[in-house]
């Protein structure tokens, strides 16, 4: 037998009992009458008593020693508490109340009663009175203990009768009335009145009848579930509040009785004492709730809108926070409106809260909107109430009394209901998921599905390589980047919005398809450009100016003349790719077959990615033409005005060759020109290096100037000379144009084109008389002046545009503070 640890109260109690039973004072109690009486007074079924005796070892010994007796008493307490009888439970069960014996000594009972009961009003009145308990009971009652008990029961009777008599005015009080109603039919149930504040008395009174009925109240079986509730609440210390409620409810009942049902719904609710089973709605309560529901919403199948419910429940004067929480609990489908079930649940929660019960964290199952089904399926009120009650103890408010394991045993009996509840919960969860699905927009998921496979961060170099490949191969849709375009995510859209430029830019946003989507564009562009480039590159004609230079951005609707200018700022935005694009352009240029213009093309390419290498070609036409007049002044002026071009240095060598070539093709006069030409060229060459330095700084301009010079050359001369001289002249011209910073190149080129076209083509005939030469000289001078003016104007425009660009960039930076984060 394991050691028995008893509290002081228990120790005293047990010793008292032992001494009581130990008539012979032999320190061991045989199974004498007193013990038998004692155990019988415990209102335990015989089998339980036998079990106890067996557990404590008395059956072995044949008698009750002190330890056995104590153990037995402890087991009695365990059994009375409804816990299963186990040897371990002797010491493991905490806060076990003293075993109650109906026949035990009165003084002991009263002593312990006072210790447990918070209600003292009945104690005094019960001492000394010895009304025999009506109905069954009992065992040996001569003792004073009965006296203590009887008056209680009588008063209970009295109290019970009176409430019974009075009509049920408030549904909340129905628990009591219900019980009384329930008891009465069973006869002599007055003792079971709820009014007994003392936990001992009420359980005792209930136990009396319970024992007669052979129920196993103490063992925690279902039969009168409310009794169980009583037991459960009475046993546990935390039920002190309940006990407090109990007398309060009694008072309320009397109040209700005395006062007519003039109270408002709130007051009635306040007086409701559903404390014994806060989470179960009794019939009367439910009926009341339904009536209230009808006042708001006549249709029982309809909803109460949130606002109406809010007003209604606000009348209960609960704090808004709690009302909010009650709403959260009761509005099961989260629709902002209350169905009948939800309304009843909310009402019930309000009632409970007003009675001091803490709100549960989640809706008790008994309050779930399945409640209606439960009641419908169950029998008339009592049974459903019983069912509910038996279930509710198991559900006992989590914040309240500790659950009673024995009460939970009632759950198996509620299989049906529990199943219903389970199904409901499943349904509710599914409904919630449904709700979530509804609120979700399907496209979002596909996005995510697509997003994942796609997050490829395309580095600029990689993209560039693809560009290169595309341009070389001429195909732009079979590259690996094209699949990436499939990505429909908003990120790509955003990125597209962000980077209007179609060149790939290193995106900060996880490099999704933003960069990918752009790769194809440049590739397409490149292809187009390539094609155009190749066209222009391979047509060094003397005929009309070649077609407008190919645009790097086919989508841009710009005039050809403006391309040079516009592409310039555009490319600056693509800093990271500039080098690659330049490289790209270089490759393209190399592919061109035009050897003559290679140099200039290269120059133009290096300087300005979207530059238009073909531009220089038109200049080739007037090249030889310029040579014609052999105007030293003009040449010199050209020379003086011509600075630059680094990459043109290699051309100088070509020029010498061209000179020779030109000289060879020219007759005497042209020879002179040619001779002078080399001089000029020499001068140019010398000046060029210096100019080239300057040119280096204005890389971007070179191309423009080259282009500008091209039309200039075209206009200036339509020499019949072979192509070789043209580049020479063109170079001179280009130098002229290139020196000043050409701003609006397009405009200049346009003007130049107009000017140049107006000039008549200089005949190539060698035998020009001086007149013609002078005339041509004059014309050239005029053209020179015009061009010089244009130069200055373009320079000015260029400066202005640059300033605008700078200011825009500053604004851009100001508007995008986060771009640096």
């Amino acid at each position: 037998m394991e050691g028995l640890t008893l509290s002081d109260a228990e120790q005293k109690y047990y010793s008292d009992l032992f001494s009581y039973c130990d008539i012979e004072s032999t320190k061991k109690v045989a199974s004498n009458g007193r013990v038998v009486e004692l155990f019988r007074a415990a209102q335990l079924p015989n089998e339980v008593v036998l079990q106890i005796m067996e557990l404590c070892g008395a059956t072995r010994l044949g008698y009750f020693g002190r330890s056995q007796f104590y153990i037995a008493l402890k087991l009695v307490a365990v059994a009375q508490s409804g816990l299963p009888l186990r040897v371990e439970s002797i010491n493991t069960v905490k806060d076990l109340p003293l075993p109650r014996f109906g026949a035990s000594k009165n003084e002991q009972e009263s002593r312990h009663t006072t210790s447990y009961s918070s209600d003292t009003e009945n104690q005094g009145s019960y001492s000394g009175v010895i009304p025999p308990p009506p109905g069954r009971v009992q065992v040996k009652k001569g003792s004073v203990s009965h006296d203590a008990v009887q008056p209680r029961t009588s008063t209970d009777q009295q109290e019970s009768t009176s409430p019974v008599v009075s009509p049920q005015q408030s549904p909340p009080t129905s628990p009591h009335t219900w019980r009384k109603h329930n008891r009465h039919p069973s006869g002599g149930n007055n003792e079971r009145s709820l009014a007994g504040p003392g936990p001992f008395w009420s359980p005792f009174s209930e136990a009396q009848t319970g024992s007669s009925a052979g129920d196993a109240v103490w063992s925690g079986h279902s039969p009168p579930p409310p009794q169980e509730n009583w037991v459960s609440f009475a046993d546990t210390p935390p039920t002190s509040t309940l006990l407090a409620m109990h007398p309060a409810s009694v008072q309320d009942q009397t109040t209700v009785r005395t006062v007519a049902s003039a109270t408002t719904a709130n007051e009635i609710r306040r007086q409701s004492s559903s404390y014994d089973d806060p989470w179960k709605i009794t019939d009367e309560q439910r009926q009341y709730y339904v009536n209230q529901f009808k006042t708001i919403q006549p249709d029982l199948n309809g909803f109460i809108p949130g606002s109406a419910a809010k007003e209604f429940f606000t009348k209960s004067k609960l704090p808004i926070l709690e009302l909010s929480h009650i709403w959260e609990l009761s509005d099961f489908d989260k629709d902002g409106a209350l169905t009948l079930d939800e309304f009843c649940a909310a009402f019930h929660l309000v009632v409970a809260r007003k009675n001091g019960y803490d709100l549960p964290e989640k809706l008790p199952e008994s309050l779930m909107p399945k409640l209606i089904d439960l009641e419908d399926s169950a029998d008339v009120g009592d049974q459903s109430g019983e069912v509910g009650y038996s279930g509710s103890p198991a559900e006992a408010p989590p914040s309240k009394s500790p659950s009673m394991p024995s009460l939970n045993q009632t759950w198996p009996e509620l299989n049906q209901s529990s199943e219903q509840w389970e199904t409901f919960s499943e349904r509710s969860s599914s409904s919630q998921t449904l709700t979530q699905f509804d609120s979700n927009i399907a496209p979002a998921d596909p996005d995510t599905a697509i997003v994942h496979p796609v997050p490829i961060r395309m580095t600029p170099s990689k993209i560039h390589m693809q560009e290169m490949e595309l341009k070389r191969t001429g195909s732009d849709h079979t590259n690996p980047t094209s699949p990436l375009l499939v990505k429909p995510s908003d990120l790509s859209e955003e990125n597209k919005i962000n980077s209007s430029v179609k060149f790939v830019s290193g995106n900060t946003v996880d490099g999704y398809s933003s960069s990918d989507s752009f790769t194809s564009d440049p590739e397409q562009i490149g292809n187009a450009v390539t094609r155009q480039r190749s066209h222009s590159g391979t047509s060094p004609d003397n005929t009309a100016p070649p077609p407008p230079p190919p645009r790097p951005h086919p989508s841009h609707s710009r005039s050809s003349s403006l391309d040079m200018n516009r592409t310039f700022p555009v490319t600056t935005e693509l800093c990271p790719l500039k080098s690659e694009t330049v490289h790209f352009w270089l490759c393209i240029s190399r592919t061109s077959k035009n050897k003559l213009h290679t140099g200039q093309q290269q120059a133009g390419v290096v300087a300005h990615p979207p530059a238009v290498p073909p531009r220089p070609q038109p200049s080739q036409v007037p090249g030889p033409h310029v040579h014609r007049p052999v105007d030293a002044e003009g040449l010199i002026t050209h020379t003086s005005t011509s600075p630059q071009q680094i990459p043109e240095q290699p051309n100088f060598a070509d020029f010498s060759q061209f000179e020779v070539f030109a000289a060879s093709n020219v007759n005497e006069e042209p020879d002179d020109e040619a001779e002078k030409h080399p001089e000029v060229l020499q001068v140019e060459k010398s000046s060029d290096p210096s100019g080239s330095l300057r040119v280096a700084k204005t890389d971007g301009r070179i191309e423009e100037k080259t282009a500008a010079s091209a039309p200039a050359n075209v206009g200036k001369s339509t020499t019949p000379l072979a192509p070789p001289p043209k580049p020479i002249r063109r170079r001179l011209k280009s130098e002229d144009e290139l020196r000043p910073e050409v701003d609006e190149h397009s405009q200049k080129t346009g003007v130049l084109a107009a000017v140049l076209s107006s000039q008549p083509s200089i005949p190539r005939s060698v035998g020009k008389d001086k007149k013609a030469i002078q005339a041509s000289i004059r014309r050239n001078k005029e053209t020179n002046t015009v061009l010089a003016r244009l130069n200055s104007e373009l320079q000015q425009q260029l400066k202005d545009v640059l300033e605008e660009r700078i200011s825009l960039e500053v604004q851009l930076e100001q508007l995008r503070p986060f771009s640096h984060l």
Partner: protein
Amino acid sequence: MRKKNKNKNNKNLNASWLKPYSLLQNYPLYIRSIPAEQELKFHYTVHTSLDVVDEKVSAMGKALVDQRELYLGLLYPTEDYKVYGYVTNSKVKFVMVVDSSNTALRDNEIRSMFRKLHNSYTDVMCNPFYNPGDRIHSRAFDNMVTSMMVQVC
């Protein structure tokens, strides 16, 4: 996990912040973070991120506001954490601050979290006792946020 500030919620993965911000004054309706220290720092982060949110919202212009556009995505990354944004149709902003060390958190997860937040927020709104603009004390909401943050941590 960072805290979650909900004003829209800011969820930091080291601590998630959920912070719903109301419309006009941009004050937080709900703030939550895990762990609870450095709350002030996240508070500040969330507040500054509101500017980015506003910028993105205005950038979207009059585009139809479908759920895709409710999700603003990564607002801006810092050295320690990333800030995600989400705006509802009623201009309630959710800001989530997530620790950068949590690389496992992908965009779709963030989206789903925002979606859950949005759902919970609508549930809160359905409560007639909740006045829009009040601080959110809903326990259901708290539970949802806690569970979500615990998931990510």
